[in-house]
């Protein structure tokens, strides 16, 4: 394989980011179109990768390998398995929608423009493309160090996106909005940076262990796995557990898992809706993905050792996140807490260590991305019309803007996993997978579904039904651009809900291999076992 498809898929948005940033201040319209075209071209590349990926073939495909920093044993190694290729597809799919939805989010206000060279629009779209590039390369990297670099570096553009661009209107005035935004951005960064730095200690520890036992330190996932299979690398139990915890901590912050989740509601509340989608639907997936790829594969024994604790935390995330979502007064924060609950499901699926659980978790990552994007973006359109994030500011919207209300409902129903929509399939798989090994855990997790129905339907009821509020009177319905953003997402939710096979075909072999790394097999069905 000589054609560097994976490098190109990650490199194109990076180059696009530079080009977008370089567009002159007066031509901001051109910058938007450039960013959109680049993101669509990236989607084409991701689609090619998806099609060329052979589910029955080698574990890692489309691989590329070049020397990079030989001194640290770091190689530029890319490769995708079924899980990665699905998530790259998700990322490349969502970013054009994010860009289209945020079309006017960063238009500069003329009266507040101290410098003619100040180019917020160019910056906004360049940063989105930069995040896309870094997320894609994190999914592709099969070298731990390479992964770490982009895992950590993507915080910087994300930080500027959260802190630099907020909703136009804010209940508490502009100064307070800026203060809260800055607080949210700093909180996001410090949580993730702390997680990342602890992971750095673990990365260094991994290097020290491999250097000690193999003679030359290495970060290559394949080399480490081969060395372990050949018995050349044998981590002590303590070392493996310590390293596992270092890695897991960073991923749990990113994912986010209770009790490290508190940055997410702030970040998603203060960021504009498209950026909030970028956070929860794209960037956070790197955390759960990395648990599958790095925690389970590098530290199988420690993963099993930590499973009970992680399952408990995941359960708390599910139930506690959902309960807090029920109690929210702010639409965006409600969606954020709902996401925390959903991430609990994903982590539950991963650590249930069954093929349905992990397959379901991977599907869940994709479906959650699409459904949250649909719900959040429509919520963003709603908020931009009224200038308030509070649920109490709305009422009777469905009479004024029926299309908006209808799409909001579908997004909400997908979030509560209505059968027929994509998230149902994955949630069902996760619950089945969990139940087959840990029945009690499965039962408790099911309460998350009930609570989801509560927070989604109450949200809908309060904002969309009832008498039309005076402020909502005359609210325009979805515009063509907005409809063009929402309609394809809803179509996808329906298609994947009815026919998830193309996705499961790609994902399942990779899940089986991950399970075999952890030396786990699915438990026999109870009936068969009793024979």
């Amino acid at each position, binding site marked *: 394989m000589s054609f560097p498809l994976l490098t190109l898929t990650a490199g194109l948005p990076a180059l696009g980011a530079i080009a977008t940033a370089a567009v002159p201040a007066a031509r901001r319209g051109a910058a938007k179109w450039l960013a959109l075209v680049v993101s669509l071209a990236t989607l084409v590349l991701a689609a090619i990768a998806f099609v060329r990926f052979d589910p029955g073939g080698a574990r890692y495909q489309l691989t590329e390998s070049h*020397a*990079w920093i030989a001194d640290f044993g770091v190689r530029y190694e890319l490769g995708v398995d079924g899980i990665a290729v699905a998530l790259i597809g998700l990322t490349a799919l969502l970013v054009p929608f994010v860009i289209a939805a945020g079309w006017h989010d960063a238009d500069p206000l003329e009266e507040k423009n101290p410098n003619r060279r100040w180019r917020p629009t160019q910056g906004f779209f360049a940063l989105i493309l930069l995040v896309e590039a870094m997320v894609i390369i994190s999914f592709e990297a099969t070298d731990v160090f390479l992964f770490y670099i982009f895992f950590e570096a993507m*915080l910087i553009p994300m930080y500027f996106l959260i802190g630099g661009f907020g909703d136009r209107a804010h209940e508490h005035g502009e100064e307070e909005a800026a203060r809260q935004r800055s607080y949210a951005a700093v909180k996001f960064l410090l949580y993730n940076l702390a997680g990342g730095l602890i992971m*750095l200690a673990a990365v260094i520890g991994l290097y020290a262990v491999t250097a000690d036992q193999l003679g030359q330190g290495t970060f290559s996932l394949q080399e480490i796995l081969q060395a372990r299979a050949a018995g050349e690398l044998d981590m002590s139990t303590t070392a493996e557990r310590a390293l596992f915890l270092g890695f897991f901590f960073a991923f749990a912050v990113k994912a986010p898992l209770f009790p490290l989740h508190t940055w997410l509601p702030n970040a998603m509340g203060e960021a504009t809706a498209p950026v909030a989608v970028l956070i929860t639907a794209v960037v956070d997936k790197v955390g759960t993905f990395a648990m599958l790829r790095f925690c389970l594969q590098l530290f199988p024994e420690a993963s099993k050792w930590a499973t009970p604790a992680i399952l408990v935390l995941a359960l708390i995330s599910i139930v506690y996140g959902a309960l807090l979502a029920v109690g929210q007064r702010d639409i965006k924060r409600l969606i954020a807490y709902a996401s925390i609950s959903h991430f609990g499901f994903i982590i539950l699926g991963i650590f249930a260590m069954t093929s349905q659980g992990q397959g379901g978790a991977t599907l869940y990552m994709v479906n959650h991305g699409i459904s949250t994007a649909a719900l959040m973006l429509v919520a963003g359109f709603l908020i931009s019309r009224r200038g308030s994030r509070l649920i109490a500011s709305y009422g009777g919207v469905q009479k004024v803007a029926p299309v908006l209300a209808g799409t909001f409902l579908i997004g909400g129903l997908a979030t509560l996993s209505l059968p027929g929509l994509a998230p149902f399939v994955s949630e069902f798989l996760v619950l089945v997978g969990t139940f087959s090994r840990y029945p009690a855990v499965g039962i408790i997790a099911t309460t998350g579904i009930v609570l989801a129905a509560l927070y989604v339907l109450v949200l809908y009821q309060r904002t969309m039904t009832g008498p039309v509020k005076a402020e909502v009177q005359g609210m325009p319905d979805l515009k063509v651009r907005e409809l063009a953003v929402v309609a394809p997402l809803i179509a996808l939710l329906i298609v994947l809900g009815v026919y998830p096979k193309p996705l499961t075909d790609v994902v399942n072999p990779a899940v089986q291999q991950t399970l075999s790394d952890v030396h786990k097999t699915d438990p026999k069905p109870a009936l068969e076992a009793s024979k």
Partner: protein
Amino acid sequence: MSSTVAVHSLWTTAAPLAADKINAPKIEYAQLAPVLIVFGVAILGILLEAFLPRRFRYTGQVGLAVVGMAAAFAAVVALAAGGYATTKAHIAAMGAVAVDGPALFLQGTILLVGMVGVFTFAERRLDPKAHGRHVDSFAAQGSAVPGSDQEKDAVRAGFTTTEVFPLLMFAIGGMLIFPAANDLLTLFVALEVFSLPLYLLCALARRRRLMSQEAAVKYFLLGAFSSAFLLFGIALLYGYAGTVSYSGIASVVDGTAKLNPALADSAGNDALLLIGAALVGMGLLFKVGAVPFHMWTPDVYEGAPTPVTGFMAAATKVAAFGALLRLLYVVLPELRWDWRPVLWGVAILTMLVGAIVAVTQTDVKRLLAYSSIAHAGFILAGVIATTPEGVSSVLFYLAAYSFVTLGAFAVVTLVRDAGGEATHLSRWAGLGRRSPLVAAVFAIFLLAFAGIPLTSGFAGKFAVFSAAAQGGAMPLVIVGVISSAIAAFFYIRVIVLMFFSEPKADGPTVAVPSPLTSTAIAVGVAVTLVLGVAPQYFLDLANQAGVFVR
């Protein structure tokens, strides 16, 4: 059998030989070329100062300094290419100066830093013109009392202090010898040669002169103290080993050398060795700015003219760590079970104190000062590794760190208001709105300080921490990582201030610099990114250079 009786073997050696002939010292001039060029240029600079008309001095001095530095750098490269860094490494000038990998690597770094330093010293567009003449950051006349008529006259006449360039060259010359010094006396002389000009340079700020002089006095007094410690330590080590040469002391420590019988009373006394080594180490740790010998750093960094601060923060650290490495790896490797625990403590304290105290700072120069203390702690973690990787990682870190520092201080010189540089952090609010480019560049430097991947700071941090981990200092790595997280907080806070705060109505302006400062900043950014993205070539260089000659 000789008939003369030795009075004391210290004063007279085998007498008949002495009568025969006097051995002329053998000096390898070619191998000392970098140092000799720099000192030659410095002396030439003094002569220019004396004989050149005032209007030509600035051009002459700047040109001479740049050419001299380039020539010295070319000499370093030639020596390295000639194999002196590896196979032909040896000790020149009668055992006084080592010509080996670490020495050449650090000398090259110091010369490049010095070159960029000259650019920032020579900047004359930032300060408003004084009576129609371009002026730089240095006092019109150093000898004029601040606020006096004499000073006003000097300013009115448009005087500038072009002596700074020869002073800088002397400092660089001393710094070139410092990490190469192979006996304790050379070490001490080099220390004084680079310290004295720095004390003077610190006192020469054009604005806020009293603060600048106060900084210089503090630096001088504390520096004199540390020199005294160093000298006392040297005396004790001489008492222990009967020699001041590094290899001589090392062979006494490991027991391979015969002791001078005349020193039988004291020689081989471990108390002398331990106390002497500790005192010499203290002298060096002072220059490095390690806790608890760091007190001078914030005051001096804040008071000194910013170009001097930038140069000093970068180059002194390089030179002092070079000397510390050579002392610990060449003289005292056998003693590592004694000094490693002490340095563990110093490193942990340095990292934590630097990072924690920085959080409370409100002045950007003091902030960078405390950050430099924290970085000294990170570098110490690499020193403690006591492996070849430890040496090369420290070399790499020093190269990476010094350019980030230079660049960051160069940016500080640009942000100005009516009172000169606006260094209070609150004044930096909203800088990203006013001048996105300058703020973005400063943000890159801050991210490099914070050790964010794809910057040189990350590559350096990874190098020293992985060396430390392999050297069995994993707890140190964990402390390092924690203090990095604390440090990240205040770097990020500055970025928040620049980008997410509303600009103040009477906020500072960003002066448009001449190509000189622009070049300095551009070099800083380029090195930061290149060492971050593609560090392999430089790591190789540091690896090849990682072996000391003994």
